[in-house]
Structure formats: structure tokens, C-alpha cells
């Protein structure tokens, strides 16, 4: 192997020195950022602030920020530095954003994340860095749940919670229809499995849920014709976002518009309800929250929310508010200068959590809430339509 000539050796040396110098400088920067003010806890919030799920992501950010504002920007007695990052449409944008939060900002805890796919892709990074994740929306199926805590729900729980009510209140068979992707499969499976197990009958010809291509289905008329032909007495469904708007508007003008419509609450939750307008009236849905719940925690949450927003808070904002509440209690319980591992351990021992949705607690096996579900109906509330609680359903979770 020939030795490098004088000049090139000199260049290599300069390069090495420069590289070393850079490492030292960036290292110093990193140290400076890492320590921060004494006692400050760094929390990363990852949510879709652009793209398809912008509406949900914004609610998640605002819910967390609202809790901080109501508690002097402190969680468990420690000053909080909140670093917000954009999850985008899914895993391809969520992973680099999360990597930056972990490696560069050196967060102690991560919260938020809209999509289940993003969670699945980001979770291994957190596990490796030993950082706990208090998620407030998406939750994929995971084998190892040691560092993940979800304040929202598991996707099959809404359907399971409403199944008994539908069996008792519908005289005849129920048609199940939903979007053809993981979220749709989970939501519909929760309903159909529980419903048929307790003796309900599906009107679907082969006893299987009718799947509509997602997201390309914008016209539901052919599916409504099938439901009509099946002789169903009611319909159970789950859609969210634009598909929910299309489904509800077309349902109200279809030939099955007189069939009662039961749904997972996301069908009429948040901004979609405004777009659906009159077409959404009387739809029954199941969800873990409604802004008209009568408890002290919810009254102060809704009042504080209204100071900064036009509309009412959604379940997305509430779950993120609760993520902050969980961290508040856990950081307080984790000692003087808690490490991420100590915070994670403290979450496991939290017990009952007071929330706008009523009290709930983490299931020790799934690390998601054991909580009560509510039956809501879209009804007139002053000048607008709103999801009004009309009854309690099952307590599900764990």
C-alpha cells in the first residue's frame, strides 16, 4: 500500500483536526443543552401538525399545553421545557422527528403521537434510549409494553363497550361496515366479536364485516344498496376524518336513512361534526368522553379550553391533557431529580387518575386505561349540534 504523499497527508491531518474540533464544539453544545436549568424536565411532544391528521394533532398539542398553562408550566413541582415536533402523515416523517427529540434535545419523556403506525416505528427508539412514552392517541398492538403508557384507548374497545346496548335496543339484525385498514379492522372486530358472542345477529350476508377501500372510497351509495338489500334493522360503523363526513352526509340522503346508525365516537367527533351538519343529527356513538360530562375536573377543563378556542374540546385534547396529568403525578412521585427510568417506574404505581372523563387507571397488563364508556347522541345544543351523553355503557380495559 503506497504511503500518502506529503500534501495529501497534510490534508488528511487538517481534516482530522477539524473533525475533532467539531466534535468537541458540538459535544460542548450538547452538554450545555443537556443539563439545562437545574430540575427542569424536558418533555417531547410529537403530533401531526401538518397533513391528513393536522386537526387531531393540533388538539393533542393544545390539550397538553392547556394543562401546563393551568399548572404554571410545572409538572410534579419541576419546571417543564416542552419541545413540540411534527409527526406528519406517519412513520416516515415521525421517525426523524423523534430521533431529533431523543438525540439532539435529549428529552426525558415523550408524549403525543397520532398514528398507531408512527408509535410502532418510534417505540423501539425510545426503548433503546430508555425513555418512557405517555401516548395520547394511536396505540398499535405491542408485545413489550414496559415503557409505553396510553391515555386514550385500545381500538377494539369502543365496539366492545356498545355491543350489549345495540343487542338490547335493536329489534333485528345489525349490519357492520367499516374502512379496510388496521384501525378499521380493530374497531369493527371489537364490535362484531362481542356482539355475536352475546347473541346478537349480523345482517351481513356471510356474517363478516363489509370493508370499504380506504382512503379512496368517497362514494358510499353502492354499499348502502347492499345494506338495504340485507334487510338490516340498524347499522354499526367506524369512520374518521373526510370519510366520516362523506359517509354521514350520504347516509342521511340514502334509502337507508331511517335505519338507526350506531358508531364508534370518532364518526362525529370534533371538526367533522361541523362539516356533517344536519346530516349527523340523532347518530348514536360510543366514546370515553363528551364535553358535557358533569364532574368538577371536566368543568374546569372545558372552561379553560373555551378561553382559547372557538369550539368544545374533543377526546383527543382530553387524552393529551390527561397525559400531562399522568406525568404531573408520576414526576412528583419519582423523587428529587428523577431519571426517565424513575419516571417510568412511578407511572406504574399511580393508581386512580382524576380526569375530565371521570376517574380511570392504567391496566397493569396493557398499560392503557380501564375506563367507563359513554353512549352519546348528536343533538341540538343551543345553536349548534353536539354529542350529548345519553347514558353510561360498559367499563372496558385491561
Amino acid at each position, binding site marked *: 500500500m503506497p504511503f500518502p504523499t506529503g500534501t495529501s497527508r497534510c490534508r488528511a491531518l487538517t481534516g482530522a483536526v477539524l473533525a475533532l474540533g467539531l466534535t468537541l464544539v458540538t459535544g460542548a453544545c450538547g452538554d450545555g443543552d443537556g443539563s439545562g436549568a437545574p430540575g427542569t424536565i424536558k418533555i417531547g411532544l410529537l403530533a401531526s401538525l401538518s*397533513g*391528513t391528521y*393536522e*386537526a387531531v394533532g*393540533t388538539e393533542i398539542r393544545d390539550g397538553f399545553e392547556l394543562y401546563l398553562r393551568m399548572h404554571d408550566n410545572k409538572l410534579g413541582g419541576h419546571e417543564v421545557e416542552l419541545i413540540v415536533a411534527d409527526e406528519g402523515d406517519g412513520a416516515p416523517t415521525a421517525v426523524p422527528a423523534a430521533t431529533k427529540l431523543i438525540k439532539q434535545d435529549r428529552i426525558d419523556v415523550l408524549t403525543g403521537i397520532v398514528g398507531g403506525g408512527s408509535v410502532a416505528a418510534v417505540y423501539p427508539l425510545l426503548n433503546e434510549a430508555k425513555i418512557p412514552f405517555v401516548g395520547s392517541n394511536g396505540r398499535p398492538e405491542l408485545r413489550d409494553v414496559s415503557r409505553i403508557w396510553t391515555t386514550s384507548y385500545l381500538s377494539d374497545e369502543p365496539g366492545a363497550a356498545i355491543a350489549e346496548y345495540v343487542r338490547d335496543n335493536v329489534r333485528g339484525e345489525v349490519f357492520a361496515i367499516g374502512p*379496510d385498514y388496521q384501525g378499521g379492522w380493530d374497531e369493527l372486530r371489537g364490535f362484531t366479536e362481542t356482539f355475536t358472542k352475546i347473541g346478537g345477529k349480523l345482517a351481513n350476508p356471510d356474517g363478516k364485516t*363489509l370493508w*370499504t*377501500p380506504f*382512503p*379512496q372510497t*368517497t*362514494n358510499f*351509495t*353502492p*354499499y*348502502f*344498496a*347492499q345494506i*338495504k*338489500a340485507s334487510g338490516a334493522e340498524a347499522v354499526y360503523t367506524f369512520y374518521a*376524518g*373526510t370519510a366520516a*363526513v*362523506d359517509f354521514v*352526509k*350520504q347516509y342521511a*340522503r*340514502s*334509502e337507508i*336513512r331511517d335505519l338507526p346508525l350506531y358508531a364508534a365516537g370518532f364518526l362525529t367527533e*370534533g*371538526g*367533522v361534526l*361541523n*362539516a*356533517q*351538519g344536519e346530516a349527523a343529527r340523532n347518530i348514536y356513538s360510543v366514546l370515553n368522553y363528551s364535553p358535557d360530562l358533569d364532574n368538577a375536573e371536566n368543568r374546569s377543563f372545558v372552561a379553560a379550553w373555551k378561553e382559547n378556542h372557538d369550539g368544545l374540546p374533543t377526546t383527543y385534547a382530553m387524552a393529551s391533557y390527561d397525559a400531562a396529568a399522568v406525568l404531573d403525578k408520576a414526576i412528583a412521585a419519582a423523587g428529587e431529580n428523577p431519571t426517565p427510568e424513575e419516571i417510568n417506574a412511578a407511572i406504574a404505581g399511580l393508581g386512580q387518575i382524576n380526569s375530565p372523563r371521570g376517574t380511570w387507571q392504567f391496566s397493569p397488563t396493557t398499560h392503557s386505561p380501564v375506563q367507563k364508556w359513554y353512549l352519546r347522541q348528536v343533538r341540538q345544543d343551543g345553536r349548534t349540534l353536539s354529542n350529548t351523553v345519553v347514558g353510561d355503557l360498559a367499563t372496558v380495559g385491561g
Partner: protein
Amino acid sequence: MTTRAAPLTDAIDPYLIPALDGVAYGLLLFVAASGLVLCFGVANILNLAHGALYAVGAYTVAVLADASWGSLALALVVGVAAGAGAGGVLAGLLAPVVRRDHLTQALLTFGVALVGSALLVAAFGPDSLPVRIPAALDGTVEVAGHRYPAYRLGFIAVAGLIAVALTLVVARTRVGMLVRATVDDADMVACLGVNPARVRLGVLVAAGALAGVAGVLGAPIIGPAPTTADTVLMLGLVVVVLGGLDSVRNTLLAALAVGEIQTLGVALTPAVAPFLLFTAMAAVLAVRSRGVPAWWRFRPRWGGTT
């Protein structure tokens, strides 16, 4: 339903509404795609911002219409003007790259589409917007013993008129003659003293106006949302692929075919619904690549008199 209905009627009955709806949906796609075909066929510009122009029309009606007939008419005027204006701006942006290949134009117009969609979301928020239509159109009507949305029935009539008018303009007017001549031989038209830049501007403005019309009238069917531009562009491109570029009639047939595939096809074979549209597209492309059959090739161009 009568108990004595013939078995055949019973078998057809569940598919009546999907078939009718396929016509409504197909006509919407025709109005939306005709501007795209016009751009590509006449001005040789692959306009990927066409879906965004539809979205402009859809947002216009969502903002202006308040369930009265007057506001709907106003929205139509403003939507068409906005679409035409946006088409004119596009023509200006495209002028420097007019001698470049399709890829350059596609990149430019796609960039415009991305910026336009982002601006719409910034202005109107990330949620779908409600579209209020006059009460007379908001209900349902009885069609052969089934309920069907009144608006879609009205839309079939209006879109049918637009299709007829477009065919007549292309076939019978001086402007239409120019359009047909440009499709056939743009250089010869230029030699005859017609400024190609003005033809291009005219075509992009007309295509923008068509997208505006489609957006305003189609908003109750494909409504204003952040995904609208992509949905409409995708379906429009499928129509262009299926129908080709050289006649209004082929575009109409392709649009109706896509409409029926999306409704009647889905009702008949729900299990393969996700693949139906693109299977049809692949089949047409495969057949085309082996040469268009002679009986098809001699179809009249852009309306019927050449």
C-alpha cells in the same frame, strides 16, 4: 316492494340506485376531467394543478353558499372566475417552460398544486367544510321505489347540459374549430397566423373555468377537504388514460365507465372493489399497446365533424 314482482326485477332491483349513481358520479368526473383533457390534448400541457383548481371551486361554494339559490348562483360565478383566473396565472407561470418536456411542466404544475393545497388548508383549516345547498335540493326523491338524493338527480341534468354544450362548442363554433385544428396540427395553425401563446392562454383559462364549475357543482358530492385536490386529480388522470385525448365523446364514455366501476362495479363485486378501477385501467392500457382497433380509430375527433 310488491310480492308478485318477477324474479328478474328482484335481481336487478338492488343495483338500480348504484347504476343511477354511477351516472351522476361519472358526469361529475367528466366535468372535472374535461379541463384536464383540454389542457393535455390542445395545449399539450400536463396540468397536475387541475385538482387544486377543483378544490378552489369547492371551497368557494362552501364559503359563499348559505342554502339560498342566489348564493349558489353567486358561488358559481365566483368559482368559475376564480378557476379561470387561476388557469390564467398557470399559463403565465408555464410560459417560460413551454418548449420544455412534459416532465418539467408536470413538476411545475405539481409544485403549484402543492402550494395551492397548502394555502387552502392554511386559509380554511384542516377540517372538511360543510356545503349548504338550497332546501329543495337537500332532500331525497323517489326513483323506482328507492330514495335517491335530489341534488345528484339535479346534477345529472346540469352536467348532461354541460356535456352537450361542450360537444356543440367544439363541433360547431369557430373557437371549437381552432381547438380541433390545434389538436391535429399545432404548427400549421401557427403558420395560419394564430398566436400559439394565445391559444395556450385561452385553453388554460377555459380548463380552469371548467374545473371551477366542477368544483362548485360537485362540492356536495366530493366536498372541500385537504384531500380534495388529490382525489379529483387521480380520478381525472384515470379518465384521461381510459378515454384518450382526442374526443369529447371518448372522455364522456371513460368518465361514465369510471363512475359505474366505482358504484355498480363495487355493488356487484364488493370483494375486489379496491382493485376494480386500476384493473380496468391496466386492461385498457394493455389493449391500447397492441394497437387501437380500426373500428375505434375512426371515431370523430373532438365532437364529430372532422
